[in-house]
């Protein structure tokens, strides 16, 4: 009955919480490299099913914050707590792959895909964190391992449909236009079925049309599937249009937080951006 199948068949949201509940709490973290401070006592909260934008001038500590959450950096002080599966994960004590398995997915400012693999294989690699079959049974490709592989393959088709990339399914990522690579990277993060999705400048270097497409995909993922999104973005128009809340960083400190309208009226923010 193919007619019933149009639309989404698989949920993309990996969170076990209700919308509005606290998904992630950053408590007073500080991070420095040698003597150079990157983050100084930053606290914030991310709620289930919201889009939170982190903005700030260059060097404000935005990417450092995302890297601390995904486990690439380890803050010297403070802690980051992530709630999922009825548990509290202290992310500051976990390794990046454990953080990913807990339900945190991310994309990078500079695309980090497997360039010589196809779009499909890149997406499948994102689903890998959920595969239960061991090395031996996967090698035999029989029974549960085969069934699991087929189910994930089918799930990936939902993402291909969502991101409108069926025409490039079997293309090598390295040969694709930049805007499409960004899309594939988003797809790979979604293939992890995350509880929270961290996007580092998803629209950097795109033209207006590509930006609009990307904004639409981000909104679809959030509105249709309820996936929680934390994004860093420089294009203020995009931030104001799509985010529910905004956190502003400057010199490693949080200087403001609120709805896009509140933040854009905030004198401290205006000063940070105009640089007086």
């Amino acid at each position: 009955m193919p007619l019933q199948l149009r639309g989404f068949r698989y949920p993309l949201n990996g969170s076990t919480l209700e919308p509005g509940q606290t998904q992630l709490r950053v408590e007073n973290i500080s991070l420095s490299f040698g003597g150079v401070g990157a983050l100084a006592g930053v606290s914030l909260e991310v709620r289930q099913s919201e889009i939170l934008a982190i903005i700030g001038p260059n060097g404000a500590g935005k990417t450092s914050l995302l890297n601390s959450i995904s486990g690439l950096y380890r803050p010297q002080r403070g802690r980051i707590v992530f709630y999922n599966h009825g548990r509290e994960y202290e992310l500051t004590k976990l390794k990046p792959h454990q953080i990913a398995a807990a339900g945190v997915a991310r994309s990078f400012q500079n695309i980090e895909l497997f360039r010589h693999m196809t779009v499909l294989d890149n997406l499948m690699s994102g689903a890998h964190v959920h595969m239960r079959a061991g090395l031996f049974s996967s090698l035999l490709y029989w029974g549960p391992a085969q069934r699991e592989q087929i189910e994930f393959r089918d799930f990936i088709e939902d993402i291909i449909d969502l991101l409108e990339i069926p025409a490039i399914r079997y293309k090598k990522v390295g040969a694709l236009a930049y805007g499409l690579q960004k899309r594939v990277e988003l797809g790979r993060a979604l293939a992890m079925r995350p509880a929270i999705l961290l996007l580092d400048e998803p629209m950097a270097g795109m033209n207006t049309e590509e930006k609009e497409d990307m904004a639409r995909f981000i909104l679809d993922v959030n509105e249709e599937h309820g996936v929680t999104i934390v994004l860093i973005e420089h294009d203020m128009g995009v931030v104001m249009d799509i985010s529910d809340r905004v956190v502003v960083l400057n010199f490693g400190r949080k200087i403001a937080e609120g709805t896009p309208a509140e933040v854009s009226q905030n004198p401290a923010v205006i000063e940070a951006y105009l640089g007086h």
Partner: protein
Amino acid sequence: MAQEPQTLPQYLRFRARQAPDRVAMRERIYGIWSPITWRELYDYVKHFALGLHVLRLKPEDTVAIIGDNRPEWVIAELAAQSMGSKSVGIYQDSVVAEVQDIVTRSKASFIVAEDQEQVDKIIEMWPQIQGQVHKVIYYDPKGLRNYTEDYLMYFPEVLELGRKFEEENPGFYEAQVERGRADDLAILSTTSGTTARPKLAMLTHRNLLSMAKNLMAVDPLEPDDEYVSFLPLAWIGEQMMCVAAGLYVGFKINFPEAPETVQHDIREIGPQVMFSPPRIWENMVSQVQVKIEDTTRLKRWFYNWAMPIGYAMADTRFRKEEPSLGLRIKYFLARWTVFEPIKDQLGLRHLKRAYTGGAALGPDVFRFFHALGVNLKQIYGQTEISGIAVVHRDGDIKFQTVGLPIPETEIRIDEETGEILMRSPAVMVGYFGDEEATRKAIDEEGWLHSGDAGYLDEDGHLIVIDRAKDVMTLADGTKFSPQFIENKLKFSPYIKEAVVFGGQWPYVTAFINIDFANVGKWAENRLIPYTTYTDLAQKPQVYALIREYVVKANQDLPPAARIRRFLLLHKELDADDAELTRTRKVRRRLIAQRYQELIDALYGDQDTVDVETTITYQDGSTATIRTQLRIERLEEEAEPTAQSAA
């Protein structure tokens, strides 16, 4: 079945009884070809029809359908017809004003819209149509979850309504289908509208089915044959193949996954029959030419060796001569080394035959496909005669003609005007809501006035010159078709569109649209930097490139018809700016009006001309471009010959 089916829904019932478990359609969805059997299709149509009935669809109503080619499109159409109603297809890339115009004029009470993109258009025009339209039914729910408009309904909800109704009223649907008569209206079909806004041709079941029967009498197809439906279902050509011939023969209809995957999907299916307008065939030629340019030297050598052999073979067959043994051996080698691989890449390997229609196809493109061994045939017809009236017979192909009339079809040339007149059971009833236009189109004896100028050759083949209004009389008195010159130009992979002017002017000139992708690639290979389309089109090197092709086209033209001046337009002609029809035909008069200054400049003394145009974006907003265009003259060579001709 005792009685032959009279209507399309009756044909559907016939197929569902005869071969319930046979595949009727396939759609590539989530990367997999998912089949729908005749029984399933019948049930979907039944339930959707009953759902519409519950929602108060009346026989005098119309169901408007807008979207890409999907099973739901056809289901909605057949469901409307089952209830004694009719459908009207709207081109999916139409802007809001166009959609609204057709919804209003067709008096549609339901709109079946594919997805968010189409639903957004309807929501925008809702205040103007809300008194007339009951429900808007969508079938791709992506992005529509949070829409709260109470007139929106999801396709499966309507199916569910129908399923419930069926339980309480078994046999109701069958009785409705039984009541259908051959002379009931089946569809309103929009005409292409090269000269005015599209009209709505009323076509009955008899019209569509007689056309299918007569075409299949000439070119039979089997239920096992495959067909890929990828051109807009609002177009009569697609209605004719996918719906009318599809139900009449029962061949399998395949719907591609997305517009961008069409080429790949055609290749996977390997259809036995294709019908496409010239644009598709021209694109294929450009694609092959560009790929050959980029390939290894060895492959290029093979291609350059094989093509003349292919052309020689095609020309021999056109002349209906026996090819010599030498040619046959060479062609055999060329076929297996070059032609079959190219056809395989294009998905044309299993074709029994392919048609082109909707506009004239240049002879060069025609010869190209015959050289490859593709049995490409011209079709001539128009919306008003259910799409087709004349077709080439296998083995009797002349590329300057469109062939012979199909059975039950008469053709006559009006002695005074030279207009092509046609009469057949496929001629429409008239234009919906426009009796005056109907009277102009169909005379008392039932002849359809096509508006095309043409003549019959010694073998009875029809030759179409052009739209009667466009035919130009040259300085020396001969009649000439601007379209013929345009097609010559468009054979170049670097020329996407051309508009030729002559007739009332002293000599022939042209506007040319470069092919952005191909010229862009050409420029990159030669390290010519450029920014936008406008910038690229005005590069002197690009002018020189296009000039070569204009000179080449001129060689085959009578001196008085040669292009003396041309310019490269700063923007692509676009259907959203109403410069092309939705089937991508040039609206010559509108273009001449809009670019009056450019035409004046082509016939004046300047070397350059300043332009300022307003362009309309997808969302309806507008912007202005200001730039300067160069005028290229070819007078040195054309002048002496033109004088000698005069």
